[in-house]
């Protein structure tokens, strides 16, 4: 019995649980719900055993380290904590409605590990990572990320339920046109060289930020825009996962990676950045089609789900609770990282991209908490902030390693 076998069993269990939770929403049979919970608990226990076994295996290999030290292990641990927090919510609030939204995230993350070909080897630690702080830092940070992940899933449900009508099709066309125009500008500027690419990313960053701020400030009044935002988040999540999956298949079957070569150098080569313009155009057309599908069928999905989803203020409350758990954990995660950096380099804060992005995430959730406590905001805007916060979490966790460079480079995709 090896840990990787157990991990596969856990992944399969989550797949089964995902199907069960979704059918529970559709058919509302008590038996299905109970089975879903049992399968999830089983998967969770198997995954716990797998983590412990992997820890032991590292000792048998004379490396002896905590299974929280590279991208593979941190993703596994992220799904483990997400499932744990989900189960706590399920038992505490006695509702199985969130399962259909949270368990897919856990399953997709595990599936992503497999399709993205992230190495699962137990490799020895580089000297900088040999510290007891590693364990606390990573453990606490990922528990926090998991709580934010659950908050995000629930916020997405909230925003879907919150929608009354999807608004005029102009919104959709504007969204589609924005994607088409920005993508073309992006390709054009990238073809002009590195500095133009940076300029493009900065420009697009400013646009997205402006839109987020507009949504946070005026979201409650302009729900059509919020629905567009919702469609955008769903499209983004799904296309990232699918594109990375295609990348993996493409790289494995046609473009054998050199020994030790990083996956991130070839990211999206199977789709958006393909050498053949036809394939990248097709990829974008698929994204556009999916975006309009999500946008036009969202209302149908809402009507389908509406009877089974808890009341909106419960969703709002659970989101708040998840953030109230996640934010202190994120704080402690940043602090343990700072103390560790001080013992390794003599600086507790050096503004490296990962640190800065974790601080940005911290700011966003601080904004959430303050606007809720002091300004008394509730509902739509809160769900938008929570979603934007999780996008920042994802960027802190993956984007910084994939796009930017810095101290945390050992968290890369190798």
């Amino acid at each position, binding site marked *: 019995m090896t840990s990787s076998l157990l991990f596969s069993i856990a992944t399969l269990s989550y797949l089964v649980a995902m199907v069960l939770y979704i059918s529970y929403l559709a058919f509302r049979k008590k038996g299905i719900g109970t089975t879903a919970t049992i399968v999830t608990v089983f998967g969770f226990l198997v995954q716990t055993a797998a983590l412990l076994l992997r820890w032991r295996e590292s000792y048998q290999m004379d490396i002896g380290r905590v299974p929280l030290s590279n991208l593979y292990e941190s993703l596994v641990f992220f799904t483990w904590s997400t499932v744990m927090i989900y189960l706590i919510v399920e038992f505490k609030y006695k509702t199985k409605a969130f399962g259909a939204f949270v368990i897919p995230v856990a399953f997709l993350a595990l599936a992503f590990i497999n399709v993205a070909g992230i190495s699962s080897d137990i490799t020895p630690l580089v000297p900088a990572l040999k510290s007891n702080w590693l364990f606390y830092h990573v453990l606490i940070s990922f528990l926090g990320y998991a709580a934010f992940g659950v908050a995000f899933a629930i916020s997405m449900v909230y925003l879907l339920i919150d929608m009354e009508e999807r608004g005029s099709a102009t919104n959709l066309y504007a969204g589609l046109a924005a994607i088409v125009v920005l993508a073309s500008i992006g390709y054009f500027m990238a073809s002009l060289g590195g500095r133009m690419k940076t300029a493009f990313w900065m420009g697009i960053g400013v646009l997205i930020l402006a839109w987020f701020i507009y949504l946070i400030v005026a979201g409650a009044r302009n729900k059509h825009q919020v629905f567009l935002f919702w469609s955008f988040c769903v499209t983004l999540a799904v296309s990232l996962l699918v594109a990375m999956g295609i990348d993996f298949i493409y790289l494995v079957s046609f473009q054998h990676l050199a020994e030790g070569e990083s996956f991130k150098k070839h990211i999206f080569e199977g789709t958006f950045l393909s050498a053949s313009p036809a394939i990248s155009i097709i990829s974008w057309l698929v994204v556009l089609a999916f975006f309009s599908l999500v946008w036009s069928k969202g209302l149908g999905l809402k009507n389908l789900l509406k009877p089974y989803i808890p009341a909106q203020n419960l969703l709002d409350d659970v989101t708040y609770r998840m953030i109230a758990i996640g934010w202190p954990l994120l704080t402690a995660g940043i602090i343990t990282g700072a103390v560790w950096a001080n013992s390794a380099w*003599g600086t507790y804060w050096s503004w490296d991209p990962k640190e800065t992005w974790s601080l940005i995430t911290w700011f966003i959730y601080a904004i959430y908490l303050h606007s809720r406590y002091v300004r008394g905001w509730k509902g739509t805007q809160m769900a938008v902030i929570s979603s934007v916060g999780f996008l920042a979490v994802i960027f802190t966790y993956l984007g910084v390693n994939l796009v930017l460079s810095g101290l945390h480079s050992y968290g890369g995709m190798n």
Partner: protein
Amino acid sequence: MIWEDLLENKKGFVEIIAEKFWKFFSSVKLAVILLIILAIVSIIGTIIQQNESPDKYLREYSQATVQLFEFLGFFDMYHTWWFVLLVFLLTANLTVCTLDRFPHTWKIITAPLKPIDDNTLKALPFRKEIILQGDMDKAMERSANALKNHGYSYIESKDAAGVQLLTQKGVYNRFGVYITHVSILLIFIGALIGSFFGFKAFLNLPEGVASKVVYLRNEPMWDQIMDSLGIAKSPVIHDPQEGVPAMPLGYYVRCDNFDVDYYMSPAGMPTGMPSEYHSTLSIFNLDGQKILDKRIRVNDPLTYQGVTFYQASYGTVPDARGKVILNIRKKSDTQSPGETVYVELGGSVFVPSIDRTVKVLEFAPYGMRNPATGEVQVFKTDNEEYINPAVELEIYNGKKALYQTTLLKVDSGRPNMPEDYIISFGGYWGTRFTGLQVAKDPGVWVVYIGFIMLCVGPPIAFFGSHKKLWVRIQSRGSETVILVAGSANRNRIGFERVFNKVVAEISV
């Protein structure tokens, strides 16, 4: 409004301005706006690499862009005046908000519990009336027990209408938000102390070399200010030849030894993947007396007189002639530490205990043993890593060459010599330097206290709640009317559960 107040002579000008300032900084809206601005501008510094060389920027951006970014301070963004100003504004905002709200909280915390009247009752979120048969004493006993069962110690208050039991729990949880806010102020103050009185420096020390200065990355601000005001001379030495300002330590630090350990393959050979970098550092006072030494490694620095030396990097000293460290002992003397000698490349040494002369022919950073024959082969490598160092020796009896052998460092202590002694290769010394990160930060303890409070504060603020319960017992004919009422400032759902239990226990 200002003019009206001024004209009517209600308030002085300074007073009005102070009031406006206070009002501006005590707004949470300002806090949220500042947080949004900080979150957004922080992104800039993660996209543009910070503190790179001008050449690198010119390669990446056009000349005009470089000039624009330089003007805006984007290459060292987190230390520009406008970013520091934003952080200062946030701190001022946090301070004023905290001071503005604290008196109110303090009043709530210190206020004695008052008996409830019908007016205050209406404002309470949890209320329940219970009617019991029997006299008041029985009702009193039940109520008292119910409260005690849930850990509430009460005070009694009697009035004409009846008795009231008053109780509260978790009043100090109201401090949670203040602990959080003060912790952030402490971190900020600690960071300021660090930049005023501390420094960050580096020191590249070759093996066997001592230094009484370290080279500054940033000079302590306090010294700079005092020096420019002419109050006190800065201890920092600006030597135009060195280029980098140097900070005297007041003692010598010497690198006795630097080495890299590698993870071993199953066959017992180094894999080339480093497992540890370590240096042995010694501290000497200015008279040359040794005070202490320590083997430092990454994550385990040496601190002396407030200055900490961190293992950061290493490198090769150009054109350095190193010495080979050899240890020789008789095969029979298993307990003896043997004799250690340092021999230059090409040099030789006579070892009296074995009556042989040992000549060092060559050093190689990478050696490999043929598993079949046991013979060691050496390789010249281009990189400067000494992954599996080896040395070629020739052994003489007087003038007569006896044999040549190649030793691997990993074979140290193994009895594979043809004669009755063991020669171990201890390392190639004096060709590499250890790169030390040096820091002095007197503010770090303030920051750490802030860290601890920041870990404690938010959980108290979010999950600790201030709960109040009143039980009013009044007699009405043969019945007793009990009114249970309560409030909680957080986690109402949890409080409701306790409240319902208390009610149930009284009603039974």
